[in-house]
């Protein structure tokens, strides 16, 4: 059991949980994730480690409530516990050790970009973070990232920072030149857009993928993604890959495998009863 030591609501649907896992807090590196299983009967879900405090033995998980499992996780309070956490999993981020990096974070992906920016900053790399959200209340991790370098905040409605998408700001930075590497984490369309932007500039771009996963150790193969025409298991060969080689269409489609199931589960959950009947399982379209 892993005790929750702090809970902060970061945006209307994004919550930060600090959880006691001393071993992982001690050895985790940027880019790595954990598999979390809240309690018996709950799903195993992958979550990137957003930060860690080795002295207090805690890791920071930033969770967007989208389905039943994530809603139940964000409903936990300090003093509650998570039953199973395994990790740290996946390869650490491939870091440059000098030069200039741009870290682009969209929505909850900003939390995943944070440890990368941290690692780069520690290595003496010049970091510019470009982060965004629908409006001011959706912008997260701004203060944490400001400690590591410049931050450009973009909101869709212009309620905070500059109006527009993170891609607009990224384009300007690329135009200005001098960018050695770009890290992009966020919704699939955002990562695809950033990769498309950087390609003509020849700037190496790393994206962090979060496909459907069960065990996180390479056993199930559910997390397979296509990178440069080759099938990779994101859990053991990723989760970060060359954004110019990732088949984002396939990733987006595969992420939707259980959409119907998730929505029904969430609806049932909202209705106050989390019981789910067999007919709620996803039905593929008729042939």
């Amino acid at each position: 059991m892993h005790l929750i030591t702090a809970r902060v609501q970061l945006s209307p649907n994004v919550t930060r949980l600090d959880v006691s896992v001393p071993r992982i807090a001690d050895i985790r590196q940027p880019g790595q994730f954990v598999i979390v299983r809240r309690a018996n009967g709950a799903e195993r879900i992958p979550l990137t480690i957003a930060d860690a405090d080795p002295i207090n033995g805690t890791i920071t998980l930033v969770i967007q409530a989208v389905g039943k499992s994530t809603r139940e996780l964000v409903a936990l309070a300090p003093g509650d516990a998570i039953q199973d956490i395994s990790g740290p999993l996946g390869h650490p981020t491939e870091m440059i050790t000098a030069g200039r990096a741009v870290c682009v974070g969209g929505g909850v992906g900003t939390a995943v970009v944070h440890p990368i920016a941290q690692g780069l900053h520690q290595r003496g790399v010049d970091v510019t973070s470009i982060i965004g959200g629908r409006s001011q209340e959706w912008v997260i991790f701004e203060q944490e990232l400001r400690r590591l370098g410049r931050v450009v905040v973009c909101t869709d409605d212009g309620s905070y920072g500059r109006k527009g998408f993170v891609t607009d700001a990224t384009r300007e930075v690329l135009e200005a030149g001098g960018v050695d590497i770009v890290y992009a984490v966020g919704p699939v369309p955002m990562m695809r857009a950033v990769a498309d932007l950087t390609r003509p500039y020849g700037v190496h771009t790393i994206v962090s993928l979060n496909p459907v996963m069960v065990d996180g150790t390479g056993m199930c193969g559910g997390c397979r993604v296509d990178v440069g025409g080759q099938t990779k298991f994101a859990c053991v060969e990723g989760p970060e890959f060359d954004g110019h080689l990732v088949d984002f269409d396939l990733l987006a489609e595969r992420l939707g495998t259980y959409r119907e199931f998730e929505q029904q589960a969430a609806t049932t959950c909202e209705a106050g009863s989390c019981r789910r009947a067999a007919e709620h399982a996803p039905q593929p379209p008729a042939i």
Partner: protein
Amino acid sequence: MKIARQAMPEQDATQRSGNFTEVNLGFTEQMALLEAQRCIQCKEPKCVQGCPVMVNIPRFLQFIVEGDLPGAARSLFGDNALPAVTGRVCPQETQCEVQCVRGLKAKPVAIGYLERFVADWARAHQGVVTLEAAAPTGKKVAIVGGGPAGLTAAGELVKRGHEVTIYEALHKPGGVLVYGIPEFRLPKQIVEEEVARLVQAGVKIENNVVIGRTYTLPELRAQFDAVFIANGAGLPVFMNVPGENLKGVYSANEYLTRVNLMEAYELGSDTPIMRARRVAVVGGGNVAMDAVRTAKRLGAERAILVYRRSRAEMPARVEEIHHADAEGVDFENLVAPLAIIGNATKWVTGLKCQRMELGEPDASGRRSPVAIAGSEFVLECDAVVVAIGTRANPLLTATCPDLKLNRWGNIEVTDNGMTSIPGIFAGGDIVRGAATVILAMGDGKRSAQAIDAYLRGGF
């Protein structure tokens, strides 16, 4: 006196194809007594030679004949740590029973069914068989992986007084016994009881620890007097045909893990599983049988087994093939997949296949399939489960370059099970490649004996 081999009572095929409760119901005491009497108590029993863990079969059968079930249980458990498991999942027909002299003129003694009977009797009579730890030796052994090899080794080591800690990557120990083999063949309750026995005897189990990630192998070696690696052959092999990343394509590992470990077959589990109308399972081994029978139970109108050779060459146990047949599984034998076909939203709609015929025997001695030109056809289905094998997972071995591997990534060991690093032993699928529960248990037992000798300086 001539007694016919007793048949295993089983749940009605139509009924069971819609539920996940166990298919085989087990012998009654009367049936067990009759069956045990069929053993002629050979002076040099060949059946024992056929058993990877060398169970003294005639001895425990004689106890049954004498009506001494506690004696039978103590005899059996002394040789085999997990008889309730092996009595259900061992391929007895190619191990002990194939050696039985009764089989020369009639059917061999139903050793597997009797093993299961005695093990279940002991489960119902708690306290008859106990696992007792010997006086502490002060030596500490780490076991990587809580599957059949690891659990067996743990029992053997704790019996010899060593302090044992099992590191399990998943949230529950049992390995393939809990994530792979379905409830209808091996109830999870049995594995839980076996694990509880080990814990009671003092074995420590640390779940959610991935050796290779949470700790490296050298870190583990530094903290323990010996290490036994039994982390299995976890990486699923795909067919490498077009369309394999479509939605609705699963590895057997994923399909079975969702259903078994994550209990997706039960209402109230949060883990989703696709309930497809037509499921094509590719492969001919026990895992393929488990997957296709699971698909049937999840409500598939058609659960189809696609295998490129004929039924005679299937590596699956004959009993499993018969059970699948009776439950209404469709067999597409001599059929090889060429591609998986999908629709605009990337869902599977079919499996493009080719008919095969048998040619010359290959290296395995089985006649190899040869494609029949112009025989391509599309098998309509909305899910495809790939059950063509697994290979070594490099997660652990990658963190320890000193560990000698073979060309397939399996760990190389000496006759006593020791790896290229002194004090580190290995067994089960990570050494053999995908094999059986009982072979892994045999490795666990032998490695535990070797580790014991090593710790006592007998190497």
